[in-house]
């Protein structure tokens, strides 16, 4: 692609990624979550792939990130076993990190309140972003 | 210890008894067919002389044959035919009575056929291959009506509320002819006609003897056997005659006089002669061979139709 597309895509890269990150982090408050945020980030990476014909991105990098996201997701769930059961929300109602107790009724939504749910959203977001870009890359390579 | 010796003698007695009884009946069968075709026929002990001659001859193993299957299968076929006799009540109770030995006996009858097929296939000759495939088709055929015929008395015993309905002893002690009304009698007679065809098919005698069809495929499944292997196969053939007919005696002709063993055994021999005469000699001399492409049609069509009609009539 010519230079104009390359520069525009570089400029547009950061707002897209920031917006995707916003969707992931506020998963337990606003609509959307890990999956939707990951798709947004994947679209940013797709923009790069099309603009620069993947001179810079290698695909085995994505499968690595994908496995990291997956193992992070499962290991959070396994940590729950020591507390009580699998997938146990050990962070909620502990007033420590992400554990602010919320009382029943309308509130403006606190960021550090979901317990392990935001962590799960983060893991799913990373995994989906790398998986979709891996798919886009393999389609392009065919 | 004494008990063991007694058991061993009993086993030896049954082995020798069944083999000699089978050979004698084969001799009688040959004489009767000869008489029915107006010729003199061999002496009564001719099968014994054949066996002794075969034991002296060389037992040749074909070039590409698999030695261990080729040699073992005749012996296995003979042992299993003798084994069946332990489960069938001949005089009073069967030696190894169990609560479901009818199904066991029906399945044990597959073994001799299976071992002859494997032996014939392993002898790597075209004729024995074709013969073995025909034997499998024959087995496929007669197994269906055999199953129907065997389960008729079981249904009768079940209907009149006895327990252990699959054990041959209960069927043998409760005379099924008593358990059934008039329509049932007709049903059982039809069943007996089907049984004579099944026995002829099981022993692959004249109308169904496609696997050892002499004129078409030169000895068929047993083309490559000679010497002591062929002797084993002939013996297993003879014992199978006794086994299949004594199974159907236990199922369908259980009348007996409760007195000492010898008289009961003589009555058993009489019944045996009656069945073998009709199902073997009579059908063998009268009919000629069926075509292979019609064989399973006849079995699954006419013979099993006959058997099911008998079964349905018995149901009333």
């Amino acid at each position, binding site marked *: 692609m010519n230079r104009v597309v390359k520069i525009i895509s570089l400029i547009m890269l950061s707002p897209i990624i920031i917006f995707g990150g916003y969707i992931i982090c506020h998963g337990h408050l606003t609509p959307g979550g890990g999956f939707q945020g990951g798709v947004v980030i994947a679209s940013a990476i797709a923009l790069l792939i099309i603009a620069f014909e993947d001179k810079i991105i290698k695909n085995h990098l994505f499968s*690595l990130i994908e496995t990291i996201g997956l193992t992070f997701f499962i290991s959070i769930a396994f940590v729950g076993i020591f507390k009580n059961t699998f997938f146990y929300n050990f962070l909620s109602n502990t007033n420590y990190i992400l554990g602010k107790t919320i009382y029943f009724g309308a509130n403006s939504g606190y960021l550090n309140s979901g317990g392990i749910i935001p962590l799960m959203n983060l893991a799913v977001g990373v995994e989906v972003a790398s998986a979709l870009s891996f798919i886009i890359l393999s389609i392009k390579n065919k | 210890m004494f008990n063991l010796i007694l058991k061993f003698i009993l086993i030896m007695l049954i082995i020798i008894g069944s083999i000699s009884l089978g050979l004698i009946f084969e001799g009688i069968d040959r004489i009767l067919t000869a008489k029915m075709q107006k010729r003199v026929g061999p002496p009564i002990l001719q099968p014994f002389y054949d066996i002794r001659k075969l034991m002296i001859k060389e037992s040749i193993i074909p070039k*590409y044959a698999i030695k261990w299957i080729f040699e073992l299968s005749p012996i296995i076929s003979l042992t299993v035919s003798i084994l069946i006799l332990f489960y069938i009540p001949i005089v009073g109770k069967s030696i190894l009575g169990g609560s479901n030995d009818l199904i066991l006996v029906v399945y044990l009858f597959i073994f001799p056929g*299976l071992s002859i097929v494997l032996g014939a296939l392993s002898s790597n000759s075209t004729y024995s291959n074709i013969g073995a495939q025909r034997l499998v088709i024959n087995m496929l055929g007669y197994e269906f009506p055999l199953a129907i015929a065997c389960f008729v008395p079981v249904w009768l015993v079940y209907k009149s509320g006895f327990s252990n309905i699959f054990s041959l002893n209960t069927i043998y002690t409760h005379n099924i002819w008593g358990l059934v009304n008039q329509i049932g009698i007709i049903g059982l007679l039809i069943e007996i006609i089907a049984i004579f065809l099944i026995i002829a098919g099981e022993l692959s005698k004249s109308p169904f003897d496609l696997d050892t069809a002499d004129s078409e495929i030169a000895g068929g499944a047993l083309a490559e056997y000679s010497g002591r292997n062929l002797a084993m196969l002939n013996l297993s053939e003879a014992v199978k005659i006794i086994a299949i007919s004594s199974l159907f005696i236990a199922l369908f002709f259980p009348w007996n006089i409760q007195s000492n063993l010898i008289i009961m055994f003589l009555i058993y021999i009489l019944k045996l002669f009656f069945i073998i005469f009709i199902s073997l000699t009579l059908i063998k001399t009268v009919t000629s061979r069926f075509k292979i492409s019609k064989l399973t049609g006849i079995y699954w069509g006419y013979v099993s139709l006959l058997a099911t009609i008998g079964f349905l009539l018995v149901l009333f």
Partner: protein
Amino acid sequence: MRNFIILVITIPLLTAFLLPLLKIFSKKLSNFCIGLNLILINIISFFLYKSILENGNIIYSVGASAPSITAPSGFPIRIILTANALSSFLAMFFTIIASLTFFYSLNTLKEYANLDKFYILYLLLLVGILGFLFVGDFFTLFVFYEISSISTAGLIVFLRNKENFKSTFHYLSIFSIGSLFLLLGIGLLYSQYGFLNMAIISQKIQLSFLDKIALSFIGSALLLKVGVFPFYFWKIEAYKVSPISAIILSILSSLSAIYVMFKIVFYIFGLNIPFIIALTLLSALSILFGNLLALAQKNLKKIIAYLAISELGYIILGISSGFLMQNSKFEFNAIKGGLFHIINDALDIGTLSLIIGVILYIAKIKNSLSYNSVSLQQNEIRGLAHKYPLLSISFLLVILALSGLPPLNGFASKIIIYESIFHLNPALTIIGVLGSILTLAVLIKIFALIFLGAPNRDYQPAPKIAMVVIFIFLSFMILIGLFPMQFTNYFINPSVKALISKPGYKNNIHLQQDNQEQNHSIIHLTLHSKQRYFNYI
């Protein structure tokens, strides 16, 4: 001890995700890790079975200490896993078979391009199988249905040649419709009763017309997964091209689908007589047509598929006729024969496909379709018995076992089935005897074409570990065949009691009384607080 249920399912999941990371260090390490995790699951499922035998069934709710602690809005949406004697025994048995097939495939499937991807799908399918056994509520049933069908599709397409793509397309198109109907059935139930938990729905169900429609959707989607006669066509496509260890695992997945189908039909919908009668008829048909079609096949792996279908017919014949003969003294024996035949069938068909895998390995036939499943037409493999006596002896033993001839284990379970089915209808026993003689004819045909005759070319030496695995399977078969009574008394009887205990189902497991303060949630108030909460399976 309580967490064993979830560990059995999630440890293979963890190793499946870790594999790409391990592959970077070394191939040996990743294989070692898979083997280690499979052995771990065996041990855990064995202890699970022992603990269930001692102190009854287990209910395990993921994420909260008790199933009733729920969102404030009041209805309990929890992932719930339940294990009774039958499901934990099947889990223990299937993990043993899966780990043995893993060691077998290490040896014979070396030439696969990227093996670690294969083992990810292999472990995911294992998770799908074990998940089916422990499922407690409908949505997890749908999740495990999806996991196992997508991982089987992955295993089919693994070899990436034209034929595999076609079969995967067939497979995926059927299973997307199947899972659609499953979801439809679950949606119907959820919209009516508001609960996804199988126990509550079984308590509140009134079997209205809408429930019957939901039952038929869920039942036929599960029948599609089982692959009995009418729903068998995807199985031919899948087995024709997939590798041997994938065939064995998909056989196990259809066996675990049988358990779920009968659990749902029996527990949740109450004994729906017409459906069970239809099942007995379909299974009798599948015995006949499975064997008749197997006789006419040219492709080895297709023959395995058809024989598997006919053996499934025996199992469902046993269990469904047991349910039909409600509270008569033959019900226990019929179901015992059916469950016993699940074990024998898994062993027999497993050994048959292992031996055929070794045959393909010996004849240096890679798994591209032109060679994929040796078509018996061109007689490419001949006269194996000359140089491989051990392999031919094990094939002869499989002939005896699969067609149910006396000394081996096939006969032990078939004789129990025949005895108890006879009281329902003698025609079923006659069809059973006919089915076993037809299977015998099929296996003789394979034995004649491959093992006997003059050898036409030299073959590779037989793989060592594969033969060891085959002998382990054979020793299982011979042991069960020789000691059927001891085996059934210790293993099968508790499972049959677990399946039959319909009254027991409701009140033999009381919710672990959880007297922490969270208990006084709204759900407690809404549902007649005096009585104990719910009685779960």
